[in-house]
């Protein structure tokens, strides 16, 4: 799964028998795992029909909807958790989406690739070109990632919007932490996962 190891972490945060909405659920991997391990009631959202097909095959409930058209389908506080794993950077209005997620779920979990990591920083600094890394493998003209941010950007956003961060885990691409990551998360962290209320 490579970078999708963040799903294991997210899964560890979710209480058994809860209701989970997974935005950008892909093939339904997380929900399937949670249903089997924690008996959760899950619902996925994705706009790629090929992902919908795979999720249906896994017996995961899934809706083919576009996150950019909003979450008006869902009622206020109708889920225990709303998850947005590695999809924050692809939506048109991340700020609006996060606010809607907080309205729907008691707790929200957001993970994203960190643009502040030294590798993209060096690429931009020395090459003078938009970074292309394992985590962000696309060229500037064809990338679906239109709202990339750094960990500092995201923390700033949370402060500005009075969002309470109850936990955050910052790791490298192998889902491991290190002393350097602990000391300089925005420089050495590759994937950040936040729990917000």
């Amino acid at each position, binding site marked *: 799964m490579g970078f999708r190891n963040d799903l294991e972490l997210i899964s560890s945060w979710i209480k058994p028998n809860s209701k989970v909405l997974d935005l950008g659920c892909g093939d339904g991997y997380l929900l399937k795992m949670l249903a089997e391990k924690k008996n959760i*009631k899950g*619902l996925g959202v994705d706009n790629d*029909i090929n992902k*919908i*097909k*795979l*999720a*249906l*095959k*896994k*017996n995961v*409930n*899934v*809706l*083919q*909807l576009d996150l950019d058209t909003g979450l008006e*389908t*869902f*009622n206020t506080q*109708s889920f225990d958790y709303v998850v947005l794993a590695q999809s924050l950077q692809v939506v048109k209005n991340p700020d609006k989406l996060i606010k809607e997620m907080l309205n729907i779920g008691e707790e929200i979990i957001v993970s994203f690739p960190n643009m502040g990591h030294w590798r993209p920083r060096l690429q931009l600094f020395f090459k003078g070109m938009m970074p292309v890394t394992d985590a962000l493998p696309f060229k500037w003209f064809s990338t679906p990632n239109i709202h990339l941010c750094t960990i500092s950007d995201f923390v700033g956003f949370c402060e500005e919007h009075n969002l309470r961060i109850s936990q955050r885990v910052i790791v490298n691409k192998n889902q491991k932490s290190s002393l350097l990551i602990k000391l300089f998360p925005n420089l050495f962290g590759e994937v950040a996962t936040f729990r917000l209320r």
Partner: protein
Amino acid sequence: MSLNLKTSVLKVDQPLELKSGKVLKRYELAYETYGVLNNSRDNAVLICHALSGNQHAAGKYKDDDKPGWWDNMIGSGKPIDTDHLFVVSLNNLGGCHGSTGPKSINPETKKIYGSDFPIVTVEDWVNSQSKLMESLGIAKWKFVIGGSLGGMQAFQWTLQFPDKVEKCIIIAAAPKLTAQNIAFNEVARQAIMKDPNWHNGHYLEKNVIPNQGLALARMLGHITYLSDDSMKEKFGRDLQKQKLNFNFDVEFQIESYLRYQGEKFGNSFDANTYLLMTKSLDYFDPIKDFGDDLNTRLSKTCSKYLIISFTSDWRFPPSRSKEIMKLLIHNNKNVSYSEIDSSGGHDAFLMENEDYFEIMRNFISGDNNGV
């Protein structure tokens, strides 16, 4: 494996109380089955047909080249796989393909019912279909599946018999008709009732049929089943004879196509059945009918739903399917939704489409491999 097509007629002697208050003392339901009912009797699928459909959904009759109306979907190795599933497809009550309807003899008057046949609703259909279910010894449908009006029936099944449907597939449907939908139906009805051969619906006694009116109704309906793009693709502005004739004969291909479709339908379908089917569409409104009871019913239903819409369908566009989806989500049901990219319009639900078929196949077989 072979399709194992079997045709039968169920005779029901128990009276059926209709929503209108009228009672059908006895009735017959013509149906077909495909595949084999397993020993535990838990692999049965009910197919609900649309406005002008019938029980012949799959396979071919002897000496007939034309397969059933959903032959691409139902059969050995197809999404509704008859190697594993036992499929039941019937002609709705009020139909004109073998089930009791306006063409049948009214046992009380010994005359053809004609327009005296009571108007039946989707609710009545589901009640009559439950008798067929009983007679086949099926306690629970594995799937109830339908497109358009058939999708509405499938939805109604889960509300009316919340514990008798395991999974429900609702395709290209809506929770109720809009004023525009009803308007189209009304023009179709007027076309039929203005035909000089209408005779207040008792045309068969006079040995005539209002085929001109029915043809017009079908032409109008047909336009709403296609999309602008699919018409452009299929016909464009192509002419029958390379040049304009400056008269009112058939000139454009689309005119010829509509006239052909209308004529064919006008001579083969029953006008009273058509009127009746459009009325049951107009009346369908389970959210209003069940009122406060709707949420209780939905809370009881254990069905798992798949809802499918098509991008170019303007009769029941994706937004209408989403209304059903939202209702189910708000009631905490197991629901999946897919919007298929297609230029086929409303009729896309009858056409072969890789995405559509894979979505169907995966939902049907996804749960427990081999069903």
